[in-house]
């Protein structure tokens, strides 16, 4: 089994001066490619016994009382580059509250904390690769980068597929947010079609009448390839 090589032009490069934090934190030498070993190809597995009942319900998982904000379902499938579903993937999310404030001592934004919103959730994908969360739509917020930079509404996603070499952290954005093209972090990605793949469309098929709207966000992990020709005897 091998992992498909990562196509780096669909990702942000390390050094992106428009996002100032990257300047001193980006490697300047070339990445080294070599033969992956079973360590990069394997990875931990997480069972459903890890999960609490409300782990994927950010509306109530902090105190049991509902958080303030626009109720939304965020759902989708985790696939690999071959288009195959990835079952058993650990999906962890974190986000600001509806006012754009994180529950973190380093966030001093004016918007208040919501006493009933913690800001994290997790789930494990089903056999068809599907996952879903119930949450509130996060607010946009200002951040220290340029003189007046704002993050669009977003949810952070951490993905753990079967291989440690597939590890991925990304961010989901919301259809129609005018801050998307202005965001220096989004603009670290040069390819406009790659940016579009981070924007979740409104999904009225999953919205629940008189309850919540829904957004659909599919995620693709690096492909894992195994063919009979890769298992042939040495020298054949």
């Amino acid at each position, binding site marked *: 089994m091998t*992992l498909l090589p990562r196509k780096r032009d669909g990702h942000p490069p390390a050094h992106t001066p428009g996002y100032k934090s990257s300047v001193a934190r980006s490697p300047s030498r070339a990445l080294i490619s070599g033969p992956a*070993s079973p360590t*990069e190809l394997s990875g931990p597995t997480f069972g459903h016994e890890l999960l609490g009942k409300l782990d994927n319900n950010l509306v109530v998982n902090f105190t049991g009382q509902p958080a303030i904000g626009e109720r939304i379902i965020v759902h989708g499938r985790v696939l690999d580059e071959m288009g195959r579903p990835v079952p058993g993937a650990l999906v962890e999310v974190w986000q600001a509250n509806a006012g754009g404030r994180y529950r973190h001592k380093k966030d001093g934004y004016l918007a208040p904390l919501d006493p009933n919103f913690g*800001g994290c959730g997790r789930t494990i994908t089903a056999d068809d690769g599907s996952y879903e969360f119930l949450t509130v739509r996060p607010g946009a917020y200002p951040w220290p980068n340029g003189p007046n930079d704002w993050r669009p509404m977003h949810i952070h996603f951490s993905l753990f597929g079967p291989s440690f070499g597939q590890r991925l952290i990304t961010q989901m954005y919301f259809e129609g947010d005018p801050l998307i093209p202005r965001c220096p972090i989004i603009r670290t990605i040069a390819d406009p079609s790659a940016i579009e793949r981070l924007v979740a469309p409104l999904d009225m098929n999953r919205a629940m009448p008189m309850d919540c709207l829904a957004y659909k966000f599919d995620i693709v992990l690096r492909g894992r390839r195994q063919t009979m020709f890769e298992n042939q005897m040495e020298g054949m």
Partner: protein
Amino acid sequence: MVQPLDYLPETPSQTAGPYVHIGCTPNFVGIHGIYAEDLALKPFPAEAPGERITVTGSVIDGTGTVLRDVLVETWQPGADGRFGPGAQGFCRMPSSLETGEWVLETVKPGAVGPNAPYIALWIVARGINIGLQTRMYFEGDDLSSDPLLTRLEHQNRIPTLVAKKTGDGTYRFDIRLQGEGETIFLDM
């Protein structure tokens, strides 16, 4: 015209940002009550066989400043060179919010195939646009036939992948993101 190659492109990476702890180690930043405990605090149970080691490290930026908001994940086989079961061998370490140090208490991994024993690392933080992959080998081990290390053009950079022995069962491993002594990062 030809048939389309209808593979899917990998979802683009975005930085983990300054609040990665909220999602990955919420209890570490005082968000209690959602998960009973943070994921993968220890890679192995106390009774796991093998030599117990402690690795202390930090991640340092191009100005020489230690990162205090970095998250380091490690994945390794047990002392017998086998993986698992379950999540055994996986550890998630937020660096200290005060000192930037992280501490990995684990068992020394066994060799896998022709590779010298090593632990795989994945590093994310604010300012890191795509998670950085690297490896940690161990001072004192025979590294002379490791398939990755032997093919490196710049052999003088190998020490950046080797944890220094500081005592009986203790090692030090500092990761330099940029500049002099820059750690080798991998794309594999």
